[in-house]
Every structure is written in structure tokens, then in C-alpha cells.
């Protein structure tokens, strides 16, 4: 899988880490300093187009970061081809589902 191999994967993991790191710090700061008091307020924050876009990029980059990390762990420790396939399918499928779920939540917040 040359698309996410070697230098490209290594670089992507670091770039995504920067974005994810900055997002997490800002999000934590927001939770601590100005946490929305109720569900409606939460929905209003997440439904804001800028917040929605920034969070959607976060989810996408977090997914990429996690996939490369999962792939690295599997390459290091899981050597049997069958077991490797199972972990890739289950882990990748799990990541894909949680990513889609997060996008679904964002879209619903945006439409609300």
C-alpha cells in the first residue's frame, strides 16, 4: 500500500498529530473555561459551520493518524497473514465505523 507507506505515512502521522494535538488542547480549554451548560447550547456550538468544519477535519485526521498507528502496530507484532488480515479488517472497520458515526453526529448538529 504505497499510498500510506514509508515516508508519506511517517510524515502524515506527524502532521495529523500536530492538528489533533492543537484541536485537543483548544477543545479542553473551551470545556474548562466556557463549557456549554446544556444540550441545546452544545448543539449550537457544534452546529456552527466553523466548529463543524474544524471538527470534521479533526475526525478525518484522527482517523488517518489512528489507521497509520494501527497499521504500524500490526506490522510490528502480528506476523501471521490470517491474523493480520483479521486485525486489519476489525480494526480498520472499527475505525471507519466510528469515523462515520462522528461525521453523522456533526451533520445532525449542523442540520439542527
Amino acid at each position, binding site marked *: 500500500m504505497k499510498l500510506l507507506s*514509508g*515516508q508519506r505515512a*511517517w510524515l502524515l502521522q506527524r502532521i495529523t498529530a500536530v492538528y489533533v494535538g492543537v484541536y485537543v488542547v483548544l477543545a479542553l480549554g473551551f470545556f474548562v473555561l466556557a463549557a456549554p451548560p446544556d444540550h441545546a447550547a452544545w448543539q449550537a456550538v457544534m452546529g456552527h459551520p466553523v466548529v463543524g468544519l474544524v471538527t470534521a477535519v479533526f475526525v478525518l485526521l484522527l482517523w488517518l493518524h489512528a489507521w497509520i498507528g494501527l497499521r504500524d502496530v500490526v*506490522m510490528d507484532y502480528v506476523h501471521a497473514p490470517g491474523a493480520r488480515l483479521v486485525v486489519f479488517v476489525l480494526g480498520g472497520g472499527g475505525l471507519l465505523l466510528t469515523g462515520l458515526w462522528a461525521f453523522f453526529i456533526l451533520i445532525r448538529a449542523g442540520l439542527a
Partner: protein
Amino acid sequence: MEFSIYRFNPETDTLPKMQRFTLTDDQIEPGMMLLDALLLLKEQDDSLGFRRSCQHGVCGSDGMNINGVNGLACITPLADLEAPVTLRPFPGMPVIRDLIVDMDNFWDQYRRAEPWLVNDSPEPEVERKQSPQDRDQLDGLYECILCGCCSAACPSYWWNPDKFLGPAALLQAARFIQDSRDEATDHRLAELDDAWKLYRCHTIMNCTQVCPKGLNPSRAISDIRRTMLKKSL
């Protein structure tokens, strides 16, 4: 002084065992190295197997796991070791006998790094010259004696010895990538740009910690990545 040494002879043993040896105080001299002690122990039991040659930290033959850390027996002062001194073969490498390991894969990976100068330009009359600054770039790279301490301390090499080149081979790759006389830099970098040969390194720096020559394979690997990045931008 007590020693606990890994023993395994595939011709007679089904499982390895640790054997106790003892050197009396009068046998231990000031400034004695571990290899000197091993040579005395071999007089007690001549079936004890280990490699050694130059006895001065140059040939890299007597690499082994000494009290849990890879090192060269010939330059490890006995006085620095806590007793009982536990000696095992290099971890992650097949054992041939006792402290002797099969390093064929290590040498295969070394060859894959193409550790020779590639320069197809017409040969000058005397020599291919370098500026002092370019020559300085090779410091910390050319001194490797290929003892294997670093690769045998690297978990990435333990898990994928056939695919990951390992720190020793990558140090050599860096040595030729840095060499201003070498004309195969692009080829070398392209060869390393896959998921296995270089990028299995997770920079845990065991290699740097154990190198008996004080080299820094971890930094060499980072330099390769940096050079690769600069070339691709």
C-alpha cells in the same frame, strides 16, 4: 566472582540452561576485562563457546548480552559488573552454541544497505577529494565495527529481522548517503522509502544506549529521514 552463563549445544541439549562459574579473588587482576575472565572460565570448561578475536574493541566479535545489556566483553571492565555476572547470547538472534549467535541475517541486511561508494564519474588521477567540511559529515558514522550490539538490542529488528534493516545497516546507509563523493543518494533514499526497511524504527534509542563505540544510530536514522524529506520537498 560468580558468573551465570547461558549454555546451549544443539547437538546434545533440548533446552538451554544457565551454568554457574566462579573465579577466585586471586584469579582476578586489576583492570581485567570480561573477556579475560571468559578466557579463564574456558580453562575450567573448554566446551564454553564464545567468539573473540582482536580483544581490543575493534573486530566486534565478542558482542553478547552482559547483565541484560548488549556490549563487547573485551572492553567491559570486570570491576564495573555486578555479580553474579549474567551472560547471554544476543537477544533476537538464533543461537549456534552458548554465546555464539548466527549473524547471517545481520550481514544480509548490511549488504542490502549497499555499503560501498557509488561513483561512476571518471576516476581522477590521484583520489576523489572531499572538503574537510564534507569529510566531517562522516564522523560518527564510519567508526562502526559491525559488532551487532545495536541491532540485537532493537525490538523492531527482533520482530521483523528479515524486513527492517536494523540500526547497524541503517548507520551504514547514512554513512554513504552523507558521503559527498557518492552519486547514488537518490537511489539509496528511494530504496529505503517503504514501510519496512527504515520506517520500522520507532526511535526508542536502545541502539544508541548500547553502542560500545559511542555512536548514535538513532540520530543517523533521523538524518536519513530528514534528507529524504528535504529531497522530496
